[in-house]
């Protein structure tokens, strides 16, 4: 309610402000003087006692320092089950006209996120893998590489750096299409690039069988006693000169422990859980057999049980 000059009545008239439509209307002739007025009053009310999870001041997801603008842009998502040969909505086609420089990065991050979800990795490992990928991408020389292998290798290195190593075979299983050899080569390449960029900062310790023990044992469903015995056994076995890959030693130790306990796991199950071939487990068992009495903790297995172990 106020007074303004109406152009039709050519004099000052009483003007009504319609809040719902945002119009300023002359009350005598009905002419709309101003429309689309912007309401500058407060959008929501804040109470002291109610915090809740939604703070309306904050919008969008967490800023990503790796992306160029912090991840500010809005992305049009593909509607579920509506995909034709091309993006169904013209909005989607407009979005992907390819002007934003980060598109490759965003796609790579999404792939890394999918892979780490499949392995059940924590967010720290995923973020570290993203960082590693960004560092490698900054040096343009990585164009010709197999992208899948590169991403898988980033994830592999991130797991190693966080002291939660995953075997290359495990990474292989979630990386679509990358072979063990390709991932290995990509990993060497990344380590070299990171070393070139920030002189010798790459620190990755060698893997030990004990790092994988917990995971393999829980995959097989062994009970707590067996798991503890297996971890002790693997620690002791490192003193002996057994020339086998640590994963194979771990698999062989699990085989011995399960043979000594009540529920004997067949070789096939152990092979599936660890990714080691059955023949390799048998050969590692042959190598371990001479030292089995020194490796096995004596609270778990007595001498007679060890004698009952089948000689390879």
């Amino acid at each position, binding site marked *: 309610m106020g007074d303004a000059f109406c152009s039709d009545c050519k004099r000052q008239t009483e003007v009504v402000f319609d809040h719902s439509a945002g119009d300023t209307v002359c009350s005598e002739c009905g002419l709309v003087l101003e429309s689309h007025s912007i309401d500058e009053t407060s959008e929501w009310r804040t109470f002291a006692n109610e915090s809740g999870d939604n703070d309306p001041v904050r919008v969008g997801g967490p800023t990503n320092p790796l992306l160029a603008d912090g991840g500010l842009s809005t992305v049009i998502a593909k509607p579920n089950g509506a995909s034709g040969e091309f993006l169904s909505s013209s909005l989607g086609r407009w979005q992907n006209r390819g002007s934003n420089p980060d598109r490759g990065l965003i796609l790579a991050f999404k792939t890394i996120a999918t892979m780490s979800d499949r392995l059940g990795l924590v967010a720290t490992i995923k973020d570290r893998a993203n960082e590693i990928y960004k560092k490698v991408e900054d040096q343009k020389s990585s164009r010709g590489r197999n992208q899948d292998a590169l991403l898988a290798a980033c994830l592999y290195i991130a797991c190693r750096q966080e002291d939660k190593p995953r075997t*290359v075979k495990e990474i292989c299983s979630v990386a679509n299409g990358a072979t063990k050899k390709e991932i290995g080569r990509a990993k060497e390449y990344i380590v070299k690039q990171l070393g070139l960029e920030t002189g010798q900062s790459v620190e990755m310790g*060698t893997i030990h069988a004990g790092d994988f023990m917990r995971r393999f044992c829980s995959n097989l469903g062994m009970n707590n006693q067996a798991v503890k015995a297996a971890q002790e056994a693997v620690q002791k076995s490192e003193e002996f*000169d057994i*020339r086998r*890959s640590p994963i194979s030693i771990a698999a062989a130790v699990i085989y011995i422990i399960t043979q000594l306990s009540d529920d004997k796991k067949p070789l096939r199950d152990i092979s599936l859980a660890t990714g080691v071939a059955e023949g390799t487990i048998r050969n590692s068992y042959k190598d371990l057999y001479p030292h089995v009495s020194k490796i096995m903790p004596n609270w778990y297995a007595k001498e007679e049980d060890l004698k009952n172990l089948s000689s390879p």
Partner: protein
Amino acid sequence: MAADTVFGSSHVLDSSSSTSSHPLSPGAGVVPAIENVVSTVNLGCTLDLKAIALHAPNAEYNPKRLAAVMIRIKEPKTTALIFSSGKMVCTGAKSEQQSRLAARKHARIIQKLGFDVKFNGFKIQNIVAAYDFTFPINLIRLANSHFKFSVYEPELFPGLIYRMKQSKIMVQVFSSGKIAIAGAQKRDEILKAFENIYPILMSFRADK
């Protein structure tokens, strides 16, 4: 000679490298055996690979896999890759002189087929040597203490790859005690690398 310096003789005339007077240095005559020499030479004219493959004895040519003809000769037992530009790579020889002789023999084969070959720019690109220490080596401890130079990935490759700081020589160390030295272009680069790595590996012996 190296034997004198091992016993710490004060009459050392030549200023040998510091590793020679190291108590763990290799004694006289302990030297790695050269297993493979790779060399290249330019024959100086374009070649018709199909004609060579058809007429030369012991020739393999699979253009879908590799754009070169592979010719093998029995003495010295070597393989040569011959490209259509006239460049040739000769591998498998056991010494530098044998590699040069073998490259000449291969060039003679091509010459007999009627091409106007020359022998330009013969260069030895790579020498590989092997040695057996006969004692097992603890690769994990070696990798942990020399982490700046070694790469040890038991999942990917059973041997530890040791890259020297000063040179581009690469040494592959296996837990059985056997080593392979590669990447040298001259014989004394190999000997120098061997002298450098000898004391390091002695200190990481795994047997009691």
